[in-house]
């Protein structure tokens, strides 16, 4: 995920301080991976340098000065371009799982065992996500669904591979 574009997008709804940006990002997108303050400030200085944000005001307080950032016209255009550009689907052609299955067959280990163990691990993650979904709000549900569908796709591949192990063995370890 592009942190720069996400922070820019958050600024489009109105100027914010760095701390406020971090908090909003963490609430909406950073459930598992909250932003570090350093990431926010380094990103903002990059966006400032590129003319995508500007300093809207500075508050002097007891501590360090707090800058309030606002998005520029160029920034709005950049967010619009990012949102309108479809993401390239990741092809996963050289997945670790495929490599492991082939190596298991080449070394005459039990590849079905490996697939069973992997299925179990995937299901463990899916249970945790399903639990989080049940206790969460709509945003949580959507985030978890996205992860669940990806894990499910992996599992379908695991099942298909399990069903084709004999054929695969003939090809890779005749």
């Amino acid at each position: 995920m592009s942190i720069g574009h996400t922070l820019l997008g958050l600024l489009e709804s109105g100027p914010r301080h760095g701390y406020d940006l971090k908090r909003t990002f963490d609430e909406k997108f950073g459930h598992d991976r909250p932003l570090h303050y350093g990431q926010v400030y380094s990103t903002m200085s990059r966006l400032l340098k590129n003319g995508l944000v500007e300093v809207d005001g500075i508050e002097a307080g007891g501590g360090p000065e707090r800058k309030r950032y606002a998005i520029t016209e160029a920034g709005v255009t950049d967010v619009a371009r990012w949102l309108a550009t479809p993401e390239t689907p990741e092809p996963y052609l050289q997945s670790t799982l495929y490599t492991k299955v082939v190596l298991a067959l080449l070394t005459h280990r039990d590849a079905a065992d490996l697939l069973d163990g992997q299925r179990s691990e995937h299901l463990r993650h899916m249970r945790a996500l399903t639990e989080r979904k049940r206790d969460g709000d709509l945003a949580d549900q959507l985030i978890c669904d996205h992860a669940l569908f990806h894990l499910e796709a992996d599992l379908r591949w695991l099942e298909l591979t399990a069903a084709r192990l004999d054929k695969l063995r003939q090809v890779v370890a005749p």
Partner: protein
Amino acid sequence: MTTAPPPGSLLTAENLRKAYGPTLALDGADFSIHPGEVVAVMGPSGSGKSTLLHCLAGIVPPDSGTIMYDGQELSAMNDARRSALRRSEFGFVFQFGQLVPELTCVENVALPLRLNGRPRKEAERAALGWMERLEVDDLAKKRPGEVSGGQGQRVAVARSLVTDPRVLFADEPTGALDSLNGERVMELFTDAARSANAAVVLVTHEARVAAYSDREIVVRDGKSRDMERVV
């Protein structure tokens, strides 16, 4: 490989074998489940998972092997005793075709109690309680043909729970539903079963459905593998 069932199991099976003609459906399958536990039975089509469920539920007798339910050997019971056990202690949810089209939804849910001799009013009161729990009480007077697939499946789940069964057998319970309806059925079903401390044997090939279970066993070529006990 046969291992001793874990202590406290409500239903266990050891070394089950079952053949349909020349086809071996179960080839030494083991199983165990505790009260309040949801166990998913997974595996490819034709692996023997439905046969395992049918044997565990006493619908089909295995050719050999032992099935113990609450200290009694299911495989040694006569048909009448097994049928009585199924009616009073077990509940069933299948993919579709479970509701009697001529009866209203509340009559369908009350049916297992009526078959056990409970008076109509009392049976329908209990049925309505479960329908509320499954969020379909407003459909009480409708017939199955007048409700959607998801609603009908919730009615079927209410019916499976109405006798306060100790074991629920579900074979692809959301197989005919879309994702959203399927998830809601699974949420309500597993919540209701867990709060009633009923054990659920859940046959499914869908990972998202299996994710509502506490653990899974995998059946392949008639042999079962308990993933939790393997690790």
